[in-house]
Structures are given as C-alpha cells and as structure tokens.
C-alpha cells in the first residue's frame, strides 16, 4: 500500500531465502501462509509482503534441495503444502548466516566510518 510504503523495509534479493530458511529451522515444517504470518509477526508488521511473493523464494530453496515440500492437513483439517528444512538446508543455513554476518558487519563498518 503506497501510503505506508516508506516505513516498510524492501527485502533484499536473496535475503528472503535466508529468512525463510531460518524460520523453517526454528518452527519446523510450515506452510507458505504460516511462514508469511510468522515473518509479519516477528518483524512487527515492519516487513509486510504480498504473500504471493514468497513463492519464488520457496521454489529456489526447493530446487537447491535445501527444503522439501509435502502435502498435509492443518489442525483445522485444511489441506496445505508444508515445507521442511533438509539436512543440506541446515548446513547451508549455517554457512549463509555466517556470510550474512560478515557482510552486514562490513556494511555497518563502512556506514559508520563515513
């Protein structure tokens, strides 16, 4: 929504993949809606996305073999596609988190220095 777009954070390309992976690692198997709701909740609505934009990230992660999808039913008896992190996904999460920390540390340093 254009009115409050400024206060919201545009998610960096690639960052979303890392966030989704982290979320799945913490919460266990989750469907797309659950992931989206969780992201909104944690970011206290600062990070609000059209929920459909999650799909490309899920496709990428699945094709990398980092997550696995399976159809299941929710506690309310609705069907949903559940995504779960795989072993190689967990490993990738560690590496990517490390990379992200280095990167953000560097950016922080550069921004602080100027």
């Amino acid at each position: 929504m254009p009115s409050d777009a400024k206060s919201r954070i545009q998610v960096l390309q690639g960052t979303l993949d890392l966030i989704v992976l982290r979320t799945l690692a913490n919460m266990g198997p989750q469907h797309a809606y659950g992931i989206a709701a969780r992201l909104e909740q944690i970011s206290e609505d600062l990070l609000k996305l059209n929920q459909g934009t999650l799909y490309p990230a899920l496709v990428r992660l699945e094709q990398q073999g980092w997550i696995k999808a399976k159809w299941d039913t929710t506690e309310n008896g609705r069907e949903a596609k559940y995504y779960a992190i795989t072993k190689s996904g967990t490993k990738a999460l560690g590496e990517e988190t490390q990379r992200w920390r280095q990167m953000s540390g560097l950016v922080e340093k550069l921004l602080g220095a100027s």
Partner: protein
Amino acid sequence: MPSIRRVIAKFGNFFRRSRADQDLDREVSAHLTLLEDEFVRRGMSREDARMEARRAYGSVEQAKQLHREERSVLWMEQTIQDSRYAFRSLLKTPGFTAVAVLTLALGIGANVAIFTVVNAVLLRPLPFQHPERLVRIFDDLNGAGVKDTGLSVPEFEDLRDRSGVFENISVLWPVSTALSGGDHTERIEMLGTSFDYFNLLGAQPALGRVYDARDTMPGFTESVVISDGLWKRQFGGDPRILGRRIRVDEDAYTIVGVMPPEFRHPGPTLAGDVELWAAAGFRANPFPSPPQRAVRFLPGAIARLKPGWTIEQARQRLNALSAQLTQMFPKEYPAAVKWSWRIEPVEQNLTGNVRPTLIVLLAAVGFVLLMVAVNMASLLVARSSARMRELAIRQALGASRGRIIRQLLTESVLVSLTGGLCAMLVLWMTKGSLLALMPADLPRITEIHFDARVVVLACLLSVVTGILFGLTPALHGSRTDPNTDLKEGARNASPSLRQNRFRAALVASEIALSVVLLSGAGLLIHSFWNTLRVNPGFDADRLIVARIWVPFPNNPAANKYRNAAALSALNHEILRQVRMLPGVEEAAMGGNRSVPLVNNTVKQVVFSIPDEPNSAEKQRSAEFSSGSPEYFQVLRTPLLRGRFFTEADNLNAKPVAMVNESFAKQYLQGNALGRRVRFFGINWEITGVVADILNDGLDSPPAPRVYSPLYQGPANEMAIFLRGAIDASGLKQAVTRVVQSIDPDLPVYGVRTMREMMGNSLSRRRFSLSLMAVFGAVALFLASIGIYGVMAYAVSQRAQEFSIRMALGANARDILLLALRPGAILTVAGVAVGLAAAQGATHLMTSLLFGVSPADPITLVGVPLTLAVVALLACWIPARRAVRVAPVDALRS
C-alpha cells in the same frame, strides 16, 4: 546462483509444466483458504474474509507468473506458447497459409534437391581412403598445343621409380573387350591397370581377392577382378564364381575377385562403368617390346601422393624431372614440342566438367528462394496491416515490442519449417523419378542420396528463410501506436504510407531478381537453339549406328584378324549381309572413332608433314579414324575437293588419306590435295577434303582430323552405319544375328539411331536448360503475383479519389493511365536494376553458353519485354477495375 542442480530442476519442470501448474493452483487456493479462516477467526463474515484474504495475498496471477519464471526455462515456455498461438492464427487464415507453405515448399525443395546433387557430386569426398592424395597424370605437348597425348611405358616407369612423390601409381587403360564364357558374348568395358591399382585406391573385394604387386609380370596376368554388376548379369551372382575361367578377347582369364556394388572406377570411361579389371606390366605382348620412349600408347595414369606432399610440391618435382629427361633424350623430346607432365586431383578430372553447370544451377535456385522470401515478406506486410488492431491490443495489454516481434517471427519460422517439411516429404517420395530426370552421364550419379548434411541444410534453410522474410514485416508490424490504431476512426486500420512504400520496394526487387533468372534462362535457351541449328556435318535422318568389337588377343597367334586381309574380308562380308536386312537402303562401315558424338579417351595422335622444313620437330596432332568407301556418302558429309575412298584403296594400293576442312586450313593452308602426312610411320597421300563433322559434340568446335581407308588400316572398334526406313527396336537382334553368323565371337553393342545419339549428347545441356526455364517461369509467376497484389491494393485505396476525378469529368483513359502509372514505375525500376545485376551474374555462365555472349541482344531485349508485358497485365487487371467502379458507389462507401 544457478547451480547445476537448479538447471536440471528447471528443465525437469519444463517438461512437467502442466502438473507443476496444477500443484501451484492447489497451493495458492489452500493458502487463500488459510488466510480466509484467519480473518473469520478475527470476526469477519465469510464474504468479507474472502475479500480480505485476496487483498492480503496480492495478485494471484502475478504470484503464479513469478513462480513459473522461477521454476522453469521461461523462453522455452514462451516459444511453445508462441508456436501454439501462431498455429491457431495460421489455421484461421487457411488461404494465406496454404499459399505461403506451398511457395516455401517450392523454394526450399528446389534448393534442397539441387544441393543434394551438388553435395554428392562436388562436396562429398570420393569414397576412398584419403581421396585428397589421389591424382591423375597427363602428358602435354605445350609447344604443339596438344594436351593429354597419353604416356609411354618408360615415362610411366620414370614417374614410378624416379619421381619420389608417389606412394603408388597405376596405368589406366580403358578398353572395349568381348567377354565370352558367361551367359552370352558381350562387349564390356575393361580397365587395364598396373598391379598396384586396388592397393592404391585402398579398395577391398566383396568376394575373393584383388591382384597386387605379388602378381607382377611383363604382360597381362591371368587373374582378373569383375564388378558386382557383371557378376550378377553374366554369372547370376554365383557364389562359387571364384576360379571360373572366362575368355576375354579370346584370351583365357580366371576370376579371382568380385568388387562390392558401390565400388566404381574414379575416372572417365569409354562407355559405361568398368566391369572387368586386369593387370599388366605393359612390357610384353600385346604391348611393344622393348617399350619405346616416344610411343605414348598408355592412355593415362592415376597415382597416390606420399603423405605430406601437396599437389603443388609434386608439380614442381615433376617439372624438374621432365626438364631433366628432355635433356637426356633430345631425340624423343624435341625442344620445340615442350613436353611436360600435368598433375591434377582425381576429383577434378572426374567432376570438373560439370562443376560450372552445377554451380550456376545452385546460384539460380538460390535466387528462386530469395524471390520466394521477398514474396512472403510482401504477403506478411499486407497481413500485418490487416492485423494492426490485434497487435495494438496485445501491446496495450503489456506486451513489449520485442515480445511481439518474437511472436511474429515464430509465426514466419513455423510457416517456413512446415514448407521445408513438405518439401522434404515430396522429395523423399519422388526421389526415384527425380533421379531419372538427371542426365545419365553425370559423374557420381549413383552416389546421390539424402544424408544428414542435406537434412540439416533443409532445416537451416527453413529457419533462416523464415527469419529472413519475417523480420522486416515483424519490425514494421510491431511499430504500432495503440492510441491511434485502436481508435474507431482508424478506418479498417489502413496501412501507412511507409508500409505501402516498403511493399513497392519488395516488388521492385522481385522484378529485378526475376530479370536475373530469366536472363540466365534466356541465354541457355538461345545456346540450346544454336546447338540445334548447328550443321553437324552429317544427316541424322533415318541413320542408325551399330558397333562391333573385334577381339584383340594378347597372344598374337590367337588373333584371327592379325592379317589385315582377313579383317578386310570380314568387313566386306558384314556389309554384304547387312545390306540385305529389311529397310536398309545404304550401308557403310567405319573404324576406330568413326562414330560422331561418342566420347573417346585418347583423342589426338601425333603426326608430321614430311615436305615441311624441320618436320620431325614440329609434332602436330590430329584426330584419326577410318571409313569404308561409302562412309561419307552414307553420312551425307559433303566432299569439298578431290575424291572419296574407293574399293581400289586397299592393301595393295599406296596409302591414301582424306582430311577434314579444319585440317586443311590449319596445317596445309587449304591446299591439301596431293600433300602427304606421316602417321604411325607411314606416309599417306591426301586425295580428298571433306566438310567438318562435329565429332566431339554439337557444341564443340571440330578438331583437325585425318581419315584412312578402312581396308588399308586395321581397326578393332568398328561401326556399321545403316540408312533407310529401318525399325530400330529389332535391329540389335538382327545385326547380332548377321555378325555372329560370320563370327560368333564378335559382340554387337550400342545400336542407336543417330537422332537418339544427338539427343543424348545434349542431355546435360537440356537438363540445365529445363531447370533454368522452370526457375525463370517460377520467378516470372512470383513477380507477377507480387505486382498484382500491390496494385490491386493501391487501386482499392484510391477508389474514392478515382470516383471524384470521374465525377469531375475525367474520362476512363485518364483514370486507367493514372492507375497504371505506379506499376509502370515499379516495373521500369526493377527491370533496370535487374539488367545491371544480370550483366554481372551471367558472366559466370560463359562456359555454359554456345554461340551467344553474356550480352546477347536477343536476351537483353526479350527478357525486359516479357517482364514488362506480364507486369503491365498484372497492373491492368486492377486498374480496369478502378475505371469500372460507379462513382456513386465509391463515394458512398
């Protein structure tokens, strides 16, 4: 980062895209349901919750698209989508599609057909190991202006033992022989070779063995190898053929091997494929022994260069060696004669004389395809004008210009691929009858077949043609402005001036292209007409030729006709008996090379004129043949001076000769009577001069020629000439019966009417002429359709204008001229450009022309005139329509 894993997954998804799409639909709707549940839980009504869920989710279609782009190969999906769309839109306009596919099939098919021939004859390497190292060697007497005089045995041995550039070398001695010991006595083509011949070619037999260096001996070996064709025809494909005894020219031979069907001797032959190979050392009977350096009776040689030697290097080495030999043997090699060896690739020797024809045909057929493409472009421009609204709508809905161009290109490539496919199918189904249309003397004709290269070319040609004719119309079509083109006022989405101009330019270039093609066809037609009108030096009407081979055994004692008197008696007896055949009015016989228009490998013999100063050093050359006293009368060759041969010119009389007009002019300043010429060590006195006979082809100039009386010189290759109301179909049996009743070992062959032989000698010319004429006609047709299309459209656009003019008092003639003018301008412009281009293009054809120059005035006037008439007709039909429209109707519409 696209890892390999993802690329594989993407391609996997491309092939499972409908399942992936279903899965996505299911996931999206599950997602929406969960969202909806959440909003209901927060206290909304179902209805509101559904709306809110949609809002929170965002655009469903966009999400799906993002998903698709991420998961699969986008361009492939789009191409499939475009093809499907193109297919549907082409089906909606079946008339356009049919015309497009047909003309493209014609253009592509013609190109593929000609390329198939070029590929087999000129491009594909000869079917031997390392064919690039195979060469032919010839003796030239450059000082006397004589090429290919044949080799002498010592020269051959120098090449073999002293040149150092050849791995192997073999004599080539094509000869007619009489084969008996099989099914029936038959004249067959034999090739005498050296022992290395098969080893040199790297050829293996299908059955038995081939002869090789271990068989070496001075004369002919007893072991011979036969062709697959002869094996099947004469011996019924008998698997126990090996060791079979046969008689060839009365000599006994043993068959030791059969070659596979695809094996063919790579070089010119006398008449048809080689069917029997025999090896000799060429140093003992039937060859002169000891061999003499100046007696060049070996017709030719084939050799394989040592690895690493180029033809150029070998040529230099042979030049050095021949210079050395010239110094060593001044008597055999007079300096003025400038004897030397010439070396050329086997391939060039085999196919060199058809190369210009095939290249011209390939160029012509390329022009036809170019015209088809231009015609298609013009059609597509017209079509994209009609589709302007559709394209504008697509653009308004968000299609980028690039995307629209791609869509239009997909359409044109689809059309041309369909055309190409149809062409391939038709070619495949008609290949038998197409091959039958080819001139039978085309070299390597049996190797013509489709291969991978042809199929690849057909596909490539289709795609390139599709892009070629589709690109400009696509660029034009995509340049729409939705704002104006969608407006109600844009009447029938009329095409812009720009597009009309573009179509006009296309039509003008079509006219130019067809001028080039028609000029080529015109020149060939004029050449052919010239060959038909040429005076061959004989009268072919009711004239029939039958040929006889008189065996020439290696063992002189076995030769029944060694004694010239015996041969003369044989000839007299044959003549006496054939005169009694039904319908025969006149009969004559001729000796070696007496049949006009028949190819002969050794054409020239060297002679001298004894009463000339330094006569021995001036080696002259001329063709030589012989005839019975009636020969020239039966052929109806006019006597210019002196007298014909008579029965009295026999072995007991002094040797006499007749010469043709070319000989008298070239060597004796026209005063031939009473002069003497020295051939084969004998002085012959010239007693008559006859008109030239075109022995080497109707389109070749006559060569100087000397004739001897048949009864004064022996001959093995004999011909019977019969004139009268004769039924040619049963004649072969009749003549065979007559000849074999005299001697059962004499095979009769080549029974043909002279008309038929004249036709055959022109078959290659007729073939290229017919193709060029067809290409020219197609070009003319395409150009006239193009002109008609543009003119009809222009007239319909200006109907209102014409009506107003007529209402204001213009008369029908004025309107007609007004309507014709743009077409006339187009035609004149196209013809002018075309004539300029034709001047360049037709120069490439010089070697195919006969009696016409590339700047032939008849062609240069006739072609533009034809085009102008056709073009004006194509303009006139729509223009007349403009006049006929009632002004009231046009103004109201």
